[in-house]
């Protein structure tokens, strides 16, 4: 079984992002970049399926600028067999990214596509579901457990009320939630080996898809600041403040 894992290059999760001075966008100058954490979980799950003998090949794919090759190399170091960059000079919206990914998947015909449930930059939580629609595949989002059973997959999903298990026919799209697995770190020998693995670059313009933006970013600002709080010295003082000052308990 072949597995395709779409990934994304994003600002490292430890970085506190701020707007540009003119509020036209976020300030990404000299900011540390990394693989989106949910994508690491997706790669890990695919590699584990390969290690278990369920999968035969894991292909990491991204749609982005040339510098996204860095994250594809990370995916190769974590155990992906080969990688594909769909190169675009501009940053694309989830719908355009899903369209580009659908072309790659049509060409590769994997039995399974695993990707992160959301990227921590735009927090959109869209690409996997859109990709499933474009390919007319079933979808199992927010997965915390996956088991492959012949031509279908049983997936336990994290939903607001608890857990839900569904069965999806393969090929299918699965998006990962936090507790699906704990991703490994790339070892130095694997990082060295990854440099020799195949990384294919395909220009997005050759795909014949409409990638024109549908949304205009008018401004980016900081959220309203909270008024500075105080430290209380005791539980008694805290209860007094909550009753008499904030009036949130009686």
């Amino acid at each position: 079984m072949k597995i395709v894992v779409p990934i994304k290059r994003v600002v490292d999760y430890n970085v506190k992002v701020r707007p540009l001075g003119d509020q036209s966008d976020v300030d990404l100058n000299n900011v540390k970049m990394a693989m989106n954490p949910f994508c690491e979980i997706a790669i890990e799950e695919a590699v584990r399926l390969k290690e278990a003998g369920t999968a035969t090949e894991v292909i990491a794919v991204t749609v982005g600028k040339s510098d996204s090759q860095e994250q594809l190399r990370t995916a190769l170091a974590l155990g992906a067999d080969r990688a594909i960059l769909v190169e675009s000079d501009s940053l694309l919206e989830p719908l355009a990214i899903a369209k580009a990914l659908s072309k790659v998947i049509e060409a590769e015909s994997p039995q399974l596509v695993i990707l992160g449930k959301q990227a921590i930059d735009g927090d959109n939580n869209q690409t996997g579901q859109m990709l499933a629609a474009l390919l007319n595949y079933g979808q199992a989002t927010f997965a915390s457990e996956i088991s492959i059973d012949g031509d279908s997959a049983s997936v336990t999903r994290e939903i607001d009320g608890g857990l839900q298990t569904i069965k999806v026919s393969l090929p299918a799209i699965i998006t990962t939630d936090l507790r699906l697995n704990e991703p490994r770190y790339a070892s130095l020998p694997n990082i060295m080996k990854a440099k020799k693995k195949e990384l294919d670059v395909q220009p997005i313009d050759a795909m014949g898809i409409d990638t024109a933006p549908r949304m205009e970013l008018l401004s980016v600002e900081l959220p309203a600041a909270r008024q500075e709080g105080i430290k209380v010295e005791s539980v008694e003082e805290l209860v007094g403040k909550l009753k008499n000052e904030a009036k949130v308990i009686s």
Partner: protein
Amino acid sequence: MSTLVIAEHDNTNLKPATLNTVAAANVIGSEVHILVAGSSCQSVADEAAAVEGIEKVILVDDSAYENQLAESTANLIKSISADYSHILAPATTFGKNVLPRLSALLDVQQISEITEVLSEDTFKRPIYAGSCIATVKSSDAIKVITVRATAFDPVNTSGGSASVESISPDGVSDLSSFVNEEIAQSDRPELTAASIVISGGRGMQSGDNFHLLETIADKLGAAVGASRAAVDAGFVPNDYQVGQTGKIVAPDLYIAVGISGAIQHLAGMKDSKVIVAINKDEDAPIFQVADYGLVADLFNALPELAEQL
């Protein structure tokens, strides 16, 4: 053109986030219709018809929609989408699952998790875990939108008298099927609807110690939540998680106990009206957003707090 709200429900009752979504739809300004797709869900349609500000309820009552799986639900919404300029659902795991699929079927770019409606095509939404707020303008003919419930006050559950129109299933899919569900049962209020929330973090040290929070929750009529660290450590199940990728809450009072205050957690609670932090590390970032901070060992502070309430 009208606005369509997708009702979230359990075939018996409307989920509260639907009422906040209707509130967002009312700001957009046109006539609001609501789709109730489910199985043996007439009571939900009746409930929706009474909700303030709804003109029409569209009811699709068929076993195909019992679990509202994404494939059939998105196909159904698409089949009635031509009458609408806006299609809204709550940004819950239900809305997040179904709406992007619909959006791609309609070839439009969804606008996720809006917190403000500025005009019929311009919206505010948080990005980077709420570190920044983006204002975006959509040029798509149909605006497909998920709504952050805490950003809109719910509409009244009474006062409306909408007509109910039943339609037939359309585009039922067998790509996925329901197996089972483990839904947490609790006598406490639901996390996202509670007016007081008390949450524990890694500092709680074990799941057993959450009873210290539960004692206080029961005295205050509060819901119990947790940070990602506490859920990852297995102290409590996933439905407790408050944060960027868990639940977003904005109660009148949020009490964070033994939570350091990672940005991913703050993203889920920093719009609470009053925030209390109890942590023994006085440098914990949670104190930067707290209205009242208490530097103390939670194992001393919690029993004392329980006693004084």
